[in-house]
């Protein structure tokens, strides 16, 4: 379908997208795009990734682990590449941002992009599209409406936005010229239809939840089946998740932890408390880092009591978030809960990377969030199939002690 306005043929029908974490190439600045020194190097990396895409492709910048983007980074890296892309210097390709958190950089990025005369399409964490860097309010409303609804007509826009026909026409013409939108004429009735230049649906489907897809796939690979583990004196498992294998990837661990930590943002914990196992500590440290909270850990002894690690303490009245890698029986969390209450602190909630109890473990009095829920084979000893088959019992992992239900 030929566009009506101008010679614009820039329709991104190609579903080629490449999702990158913009902090991947910053070995030390893992959450902040504030580097001025490495600007040119980063820009070249992004250009090469952009140009590796086929015609019509989109480079998607995943901002989910980005805490801050400062003026220098925008000036040194982002604005030049956006300008070049808008001018067609990198062919018929686009750059888009996803998982953009407006709370972290509410107006700065928008203001910077406006002052530098470049635009960037971003999707926030609820997948709402937003064009940043457009100074004119009416133009911004038009383009955001087109992207939100995926299709619009000039008449509908006129009605919705209370703009006159001439104004709408001039805005549409500008947006076509700048490759934000395309205009097509339906063959049957000659109606003009305005569509996004960038395939938002594909980006939403393929780009968003990138981290969760990766995490889930890695979890599947880390499940040992046909085994025989002692979770507690009363509970055995025939399937066991070795989450530490997944958490050897520090960046993935941080990104996963940030997803669940964000759900406690309004609770603003002072302390993140966990148990002293490698996977739990790796996960919980990142949760603590997200909140800027203190990180402390406790050992669980044979009688199910949590003992704080030497040198660590819980201050009275502080707000504590319990964090753990895997919830299987809930015993560890129960021990930590008792400890916090004994120290006269308050509990803001419980978070876990994975719940393998299949929903059987519940904490009705507390806010409980996890990234993933599974049901792995767990049995009381009396009905354990692995016991019947006399499989070797392994209990070297310091997991939850038994909690008879």
């Amino acid at each position, binding site marked *: 379908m030929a566009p009506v306005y101008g010679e614009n043929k820039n329709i991104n029908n190609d579903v080629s997208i490449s999702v990158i974490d913009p902090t991947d190439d910053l070995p030390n*600045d893992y959450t902040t795009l*504030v580097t001025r*020194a490495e600007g040119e190097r980063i820009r070249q990396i992004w250009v090469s990734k952009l140009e590796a895409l086929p015609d019509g492709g989109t480079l998607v910048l995943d901002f989910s682990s980005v*805490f801050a983007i400062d*003026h220098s980074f925008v*000036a*040194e890296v982002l604005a030049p590449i956006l300008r070049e892309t808008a001018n067609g210097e990198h062919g018929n390709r686009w750059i888009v941002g996803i998982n953009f958190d407006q709370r972290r950089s*509410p107006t700065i990025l928008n203001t910077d992009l406006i002052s530098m005369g470049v635009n960037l399409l971003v999707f926030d964490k609820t997948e709402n599209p937003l064009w940043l860097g457009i100074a004119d309010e009416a133009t911004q409303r038009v383009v955001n409406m087109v992207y939100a609804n995926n299709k619009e007509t000039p008449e509908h826009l006129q009605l919705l936005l209370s703009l006159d026909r001439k104004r709408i026409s001039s805005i549409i013409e500008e947006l076509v010229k700048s490759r934000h939108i395309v205009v097509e004429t339906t063959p049957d009735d000659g109606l003009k239809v305005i569509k996004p230049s960038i395939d938002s649906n594909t980006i939403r489907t393929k780009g968003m939840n990138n981290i969760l897809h990766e995490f889930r796939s890695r979890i599947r690979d880390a499940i040992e089946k046909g085994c025989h583990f002692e979770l507690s004196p009363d509970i055995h498992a025939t399937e066991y998740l070795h989450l530490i294998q997944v958490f050897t990837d520090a960046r993935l661990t941080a990104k996963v932890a940030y997803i669940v930590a964000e759900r406690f943002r309004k609770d603003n914990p002072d302390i993140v408390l966990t148990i002293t196992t490698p996977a739990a500590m790796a996960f919980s440290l990142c949760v603590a880092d997200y909140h800027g*909270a203190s990180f402390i850990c406790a050992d669980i002894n044979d009688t199910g009591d949590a003992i704080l690690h030497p040198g660590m303490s819980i201050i009275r009245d502080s707000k504590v978030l319990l964090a753990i890698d895997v919830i299987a029986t809930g015993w560890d969390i129960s021990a930590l809960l008792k400890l916090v209450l004994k120290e006269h602190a308050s509990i803001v909630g419980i978070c876990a990377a994975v719940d393998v109890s299949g929903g059987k473990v519940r904490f009705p009095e507390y806010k409980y969030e996890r990234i993933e829920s599974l049901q792995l084979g767990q049995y009381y000893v009396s009905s354990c199939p692995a016991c019947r088959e006399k499989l070797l019992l392994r209990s070297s992992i310091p997991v939850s002690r038994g909690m008879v239900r």
Partner: protein
Amino acid sequence: MEIRFPSELSEGAFEEVLRQWTNILMGTPASYCAEESVDSYLRRVKGILDKDRIIFNLLDVRFAGLYEIAMTTILGEFTYYLTGCRVPTVLPRNILERSFMSFFGFFAHFPSWGKTDSGGSMPNDPRWKSRMMLPLKRIASSTHVGPVVHTLKTTRISTILSNVFHNEAKAASLAEIIVSELLQNIPEHSRRDVPGHGYCAIQVGKPTTPEPWRNAVEITVVDSGIGIRESVLSRYPELVRSMTTQQCIKRGFEAGWPDDGDKHRGGLILVARTIRNEFRGDMECRSVNAFIRTIGDSIISGDRSFFPGTQYRIILPYEV
């Protein structure tokens, strides 16, 4: 040779400390010539002061602000560099008297430049954390900038900032414009002979200066690098050669420098405008031998005794 620190170590008083220190330098055959390169002056002085003992007497200090603690740290480091010896330091007698220093993280960095015979452990009271946002943090390279900005964007601190300013955008501006821009200058302004480093610290709450400030967030960023004039001179030699340090600083904050494609060179203007327009705050910038101070819409500038590098003190008031 002894430098005696006054009991109330606030802004004006610290200039007195620097004057004592500069007098020691002036006592050497080498004296600083106006607009001389910091590197070349220090090369001349270093050989003269080598192995001399300069004692810091902080015995009587009962109060010091955030900026003054940062300046003491950088002064101590610099003295260590010049003399080649750790600086003998007389500290206040007991933990209670030293507590305000602990508040700002002074003792975290003291071992790198100073030594003391004062007994007893260094105080470290975790209760201060609820008021201090960022104790004295060393910035030794550009890779240290990101983690500091990251700290300001964590839930705890961004919540504190959003609450005091009643505005999330202001909290973001503080981190991503003011702090980030100033910190990135530290490694860029480093001296050739010493890998560039500096310090920053941020405090929120009732200010600990005796001045009648309103409730404010205070930011301090200090370094002992080449200073603003020398930094700009390398980029615009024809323009800056005839300017004094004072004129350079003033221009950096008011008008900026020609845009030769390096957009980020407008960082200081952005910082100044953000402080003035968004926060209605005040700022003092001291660089080598000059200073500029913004108070509201007014700008005051003048000369100062020599001290290498650039130091900022920023006050961002808020309503309770």
